[in-house]
């Protein structure tokens, strides 16, 4: 086994081994600590693999069944960030003596499912075979379902059931899409197993049957779009993201949605090549992106629950990313940068919100008052990350939204730009109206501890500084990585 | 092959004479299931004779429609019998589209029954009328679609043509469709003739009746006409199904006539068995088997269209 193969396999093998090992620790605290440390180790391995791809080029093994190129390596790096941030907060979120404390059995189950989902998401990213990709996505649905209701209460069980059924049905439809794609390759000169490999499909995109491929793409978009929470398949998203414990919500919003979008973006260049570059596939993505934006704007204005507000914000951002990729060119680059920025801001927001909710004893916005006064660390974490998420300058997401707007206007689709602007502005105003009383003013009644350890402070500070830095200037190496990832979506050689 | 008139006359006469036998066979079968000896098979004939000897009693609220309806119903039944009983037995009998006329003669008979029931102004009859129409509204699409399937498969819209066109070779390729139609015809038969599981012919509680309550106010020879008309109706639906089931056998002429009479008696035993082993459905759930019958006939149509290209 070469070093490249090891780099590909180890990040997935480690969590797969740690999952059963999570049932060994003798205390709840031990299980949660294993969770954070194991995730940190896995994140380091993932970082190493990504760096290897960024510096050395595509890694591929097992006849192309496992491969990492610029796009998947970028997503692996983002995933490492999200998981590291969330796992660092796991012991604190379930600390003993608080209302959220987990008994030992539940903590072990949490650890096992956490590592299982980590391994499954990595399988999705390193798989070069459409079929294995699908198996990974379905596995993430099943493994994360019980993470939502690790604290069994009526709300979380209802959210878990909705998530399980809606996403399973969606992913089943995605499998139909996979079958149709494989069928479209029946007449292309591919061998048996090669009909489902990205490399094979991309190479023979010209000889794929366009009708079947279109039908397959529609099913794939609907199916994986359900998993990504794009409107109108988003009904599970606010419930699942708001009822899950904070670290789980952070992972869901910070990466799981992006993982599903990754699957769609992989198919886009193949569809574009097979349909003669007519923009049919991109048009679908633009439409879905706009639908998500509009839906999220409406519901953000009407929100009363803090975590649901953050969940709808995720819907909005997935919409922006999809819109950017659909517009193509600089829009795809902006979408990649937006992915990175969102995956830093959203977990920070959820983790801070989780602590604040535990402190104030309620999910509702009207009970969370004066967060900055009650806890400078978590209050600032929530406030600043929310401002960044809403697209306030000078944070990164302002720049990316501007880039996408410019791409839309430049391409002549002023209607798209207008709808985008209207939805983003509505969300901005609607959310800000709710955030200001949450952050400033005298502190509301607290029922739980709102302390923050030194490590927590460092984590929040680093995240907020990163958001600011990304907005102000983009280092050359990062720009290079982002543009190579965007190039894969545009159909360049990976 | 003997002459057409003899065959035609024989098939029509056998229908007219043997129709009251079918309810008798059904009652006998139910009696056997219940461990009783049951009434003799000639009982319906004796009941008809007794009723013919009695006088009429008409309610003051009824009009001429009520007086005319039983005879008109009988006329519809007899016309349908004359049209369809010799089909497939006597060569050359029938005309294009006669299956539609068959279905609508039966529908007219039902309409007249319902109208006469409403004419009495009694709430019992009105209740029975509305229930009867509810079931028929679901049974009729099943019947028509089933006939359409058969027409599609055999390529003819005449009952005689249908029977001729459904030879053994057609059964090999589109047999599944014909079987589905047969099953749905059986369900329609049970519904249109007020048999369990749609209606209990032996109930004496008016609020649970569907068909029997519509004829509460009929008396004397009119009642004889109504009862005879009901058995004719059963004979008509029955021969439709039996002839369909006999199509792959390749019989013709007198053998087919004998076989179809025998098949009718067997069908009566089958209906009696179904009545003995099933329970009556609650009123609100009765549409379900009819919806199933519609579903089966649509499925049969789709399959027939696909199998025959």
């Amino acid at each position, binding site marked *: 086994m070469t070093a490249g193969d090891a780099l590909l396999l180890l990040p997935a093998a480690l969590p797969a081994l740690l999952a059963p090992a999570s049932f060994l620790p003798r205390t709840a605290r031990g299980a949660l600590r294993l969770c954070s440390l194991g995730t940190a180790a896995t994140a380091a391995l993932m970082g190493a693999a990504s760096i290897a791809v960024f510096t050395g080029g595509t890694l591929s093994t097992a006849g192309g069944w496992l491969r990492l190129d610029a796009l998947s390596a970028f997503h692996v790096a983002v995933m490492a960030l999200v998981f590291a941030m969330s796992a660092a907060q796991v012991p604190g979120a379930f600390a003993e003596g608080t209302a959220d404390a987990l008994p030992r059995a539940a903590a072990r189950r949490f650890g096992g499912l956490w590592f299982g989902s980590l391994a499954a998401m990595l399988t999705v990213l390193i798989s070069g075979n459409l079929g294995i990709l699908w198996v990974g996505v379905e596995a993430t649905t*099943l493994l994360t379902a019980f993470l939502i209701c690790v604290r069994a209460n009526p709300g979380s069980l209802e959210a878990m059931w909705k998530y399980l059924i809606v996403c399973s049905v969606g992913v089943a439809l995605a499998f139909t899409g996979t079958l149709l794609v494989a069928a479209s390759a029946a007449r292309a000169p591919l061998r048996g197993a090669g009909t489902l490999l990205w490399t094979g499909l991309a190479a023979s995109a010209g000889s794929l049957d366009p009708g079947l491929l279109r039908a397959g793409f529609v099913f794939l978009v609907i199916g994986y779009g359900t998993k990504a929470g794009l409107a109108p398949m988003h009904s599970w998203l606010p419930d699942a993201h708001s009822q899950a414990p904070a670290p789980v919500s952070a992972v869901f919003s910070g990466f799981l949605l992006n993982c599903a979008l990754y699957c769609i973006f992989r198919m886009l260049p193949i569809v574009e090549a097979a349909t003669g570059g007519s923009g049919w596939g991109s048009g679908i993505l633009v439409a879905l992106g706009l639908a998500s934006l509009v839906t999220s704007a409406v519901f953000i204005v009407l929100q009363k629950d803090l975590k649901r507000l953050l969940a709808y914000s995720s819907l909005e951002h997935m919409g922006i990313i999809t819109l950017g990729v659909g517009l193509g060119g600089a829009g795809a680059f902006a979408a990649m940068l937006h992915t990175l920025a969102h995956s830093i801001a959203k977990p920070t927001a959820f983790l801070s919100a989780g602590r604040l909710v535990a402190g104030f004893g309620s999910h509702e916005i009207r009970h969370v008052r004066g967060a900055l006064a009650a806890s400078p660390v978590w209050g600032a974490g929530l406030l600043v990350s929310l401002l960044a998420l809403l697209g306030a300058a000078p944070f990164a997401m302002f720049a990316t939204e501007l880039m996408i707007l410019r791409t839309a206007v430049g391409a002549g689709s002023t209607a798209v730009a207008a709808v985008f602007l209207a939805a983003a502005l509505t969300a901005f105003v609607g959310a800000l109206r709710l955030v200001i009383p949450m952050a400033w003013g005298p502190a509301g009644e607290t029922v739980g501890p709102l302390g923050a350890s030194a490590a927590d402070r460092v984590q929040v500070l680093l995240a907020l500084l990163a958001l600011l830095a990304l907005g102000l200037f983009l280092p050359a190496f990062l720009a290079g990585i982002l543009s190579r990832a965007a190039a894969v979506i545009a159909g360049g050689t990976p | 092959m003997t002459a057409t008139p003899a065959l035609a006359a024989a098939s029509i006469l056998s229908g007219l004479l043997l129709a009251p036998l079918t309810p008798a066979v059904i009652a006998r079968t139910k009696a056997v299931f219940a461990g009783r000896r049951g009434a003799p098979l000639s009982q319906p004939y004796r009941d008809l004779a007794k009723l013919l000897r009695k006088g009429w009693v008409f309610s003051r609220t009824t009009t001429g429609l009520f007086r005319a309806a039983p005879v008109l119903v009988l006329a519809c039944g007899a016309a349908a019998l004359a049209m369809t009983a010799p089909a497939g037995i006597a060569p050359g009998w029938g005309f294009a589209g006669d299956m539609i006329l068959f279905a609508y003669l039966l529908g007219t008979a039902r309409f007249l029954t319902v109208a006469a029931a409403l004419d009495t102004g009694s709430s019992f009859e009105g209740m029975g009328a509305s229930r009867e129409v509810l079931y028929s509204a679901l049974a009729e699409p099943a019947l028509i679609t089933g006939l359409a399937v058969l027409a599609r498969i055999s390529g003819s819209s005449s009952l005689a043509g249908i029977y001729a066109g459904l030879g053994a070779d057609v059964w090999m390729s589109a047999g599944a469709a014909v079987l589905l139609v047969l099953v749905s015809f059986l369900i329609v038969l049970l519904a249109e003739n007020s048999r369990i599981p749609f209606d209990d012919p032996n109930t004496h509680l008016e609020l649970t009746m569907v068909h029997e309550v519509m004829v509460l106010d009929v008396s004397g020879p009119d009642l004889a006409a109504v009862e005879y008309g009901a058995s004719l109706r059963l004979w008509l639906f029955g021969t439709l199904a039996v002839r369909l089931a006999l199509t792959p056998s390749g019989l013709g002429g007198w053998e087919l006539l004998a076989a179809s009479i025998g098949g009718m008696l067997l069908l009566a035993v089958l209906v009696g068995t179904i009545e003995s082993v099933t329970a009556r459905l609650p009123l609100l759930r009765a549409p379900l088997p009819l919806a199933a019958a519609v579903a089966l006939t649509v499925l049969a149509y789709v399959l027939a269209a*696909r199998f025959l290209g």
Partner: protein
Amino acid sequence: MNAPMEALLVALILSDLALLGSGRLGSCIRTVALQGILAGLLPLAEGGAGFQILLLGATVVVLKGFVFPRLLGRAMRESATSREVQPLVGYAPSLLAGVAILAGAFWLDGRMGGLLRSSGGILVPVAFSMMFTGLFLVVARRTAVNQVIGYLVLENGIYAFSLAAAREIPFLVELGVLMDLFVAVFVMGIAIQRINLEFDHIDSGRLTRLRG
């Protein structure tokens, strides 16, 4: 399109109609088990005989015909529900909807022309109608077990569709899909039990706390 295959496909459609028309959980579970067995026999009826095909068929039959009904039956017994409470769409309208789905599926297949290889047979339209029936059941039924049954019907339809669309899917992927399905049903069964523990019912129509 040979006779055994046709008979299997017609039986599959009839099992769909039976599921649409019935609300009794016990009979629904048995029907979907029968449907799984029939679906598992499809590749054999089509004439395949390789070792992989036999193994796959046997696995599908065992999983869908025996394991899943046991998992669902356990969930049903523990929750002490034996029939659908009150479906969103009544049984007779469901049957008629099933007929409409069937007609629609055949029409769709006619529109797709000869895109898929086994055109001229009824495999593709039957697969489509099973998929849409499964979706309909997931939406129209309220009892959690019935929703899982709808999901299984959807999966059966997709399996039938895979026979028509893509024969060369690698064996490993097929096994992965089956394993995923098994874990899915297992997880759903456990989820139902936990819901029942918390709520004392498994009527998802009453899970309406989260709104907005």
